[in-house]
């Protein structure tokens, strides 16, 4: 396999990127994929990234793309460009686990709630670095740096803090994926 380094390897997070009702959601945390897939009507053309999403800032707009830390040069150029195309991000969501939901919402009815950047940055590193192809092309020292939790949180805050018009959201655990999908669909 022929790969080249991704220029965005230092801003990759365990996240999906879906379009739901014409808004692009970067979704991290626990149980992030299936409910969002239902909410976007399983439309594969609006399922931009799974599991490994790089973020960047472009004129104060946050954007994201599918990125594993290295680019597969064996793919046709047009398909490669499409696979790694950036999409504007409107919402960053962190899906709480069942226990986290109990702690956050206590006796309140669970709903999608806004949170601050510090909390979201911590959520961005709950799971390990997902640029799985980076280790095949970056040096060991560089990979150690890419995987460093403190650096990842700092980079996340640095990028997201420059974005205008971005909402940071906590999504509660729901008993079924359909109920969680409804939360996404109805969120404005």
């Amino acid at each position, binding site marked *: *396999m022929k790969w080249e380094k991704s220029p965005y390897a230092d801003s990759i997070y*365990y996240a*999906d990127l879906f379009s739901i009702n014409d808004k692009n959601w970067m979704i991290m945390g626990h149980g992030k*994929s299936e409910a969002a*897939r239902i909410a976007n009507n399983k439309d*594969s053309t609006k*399922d931009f*990234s*799974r*599991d*490994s999403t790089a973020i960047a800032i472009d004129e104060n707009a946050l954007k994201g793309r*599918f990125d*594993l830390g290295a680019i*597969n040069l*064996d*793919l*046709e150029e047009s*398909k490669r460009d*499409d*696979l790694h195309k950036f999409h504007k991000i409107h919402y960053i969501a962190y899906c709480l686990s069942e226990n986290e939901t109990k702690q956050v919402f206590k006796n309140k009815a669970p709903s999608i709630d806004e949170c601050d950047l510090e909390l979201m940055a911590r959520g961005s590193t*709950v*799971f*390990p670095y*997902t640029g*799985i*192809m980076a280790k095949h092309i970056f040096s060991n020292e560089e990979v150690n740096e890419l995987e460093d939790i403190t650096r990842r949180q700092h980079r996340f805050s640095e990028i997201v803090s420059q974005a205008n018009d971005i909402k940071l959201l906590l999504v509660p655990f729901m008993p079924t994926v359909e109920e969680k999908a409804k939360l996404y669909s109805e969120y404005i």
Partner: protein
Amino acid sequence: MNKSVYIGIYKEIDSNGKAHSVQVHDNTNSMPLDVETYIKRGIKPNIEDLPIKQEYEGKK
């Protein structure tokens, strides 16, 4: 907590040109996955964008 992350490398097709298996790479290994699992997991790239095994091996 460790999460498996996959990327599709190439597909294998039957005599009708239909994909029946996709070779993926995960954190450490390369392995075949059936098409249904590949789609359900939302692994990238989409199957239609992957090279056929023979095309892929021809490039190596």
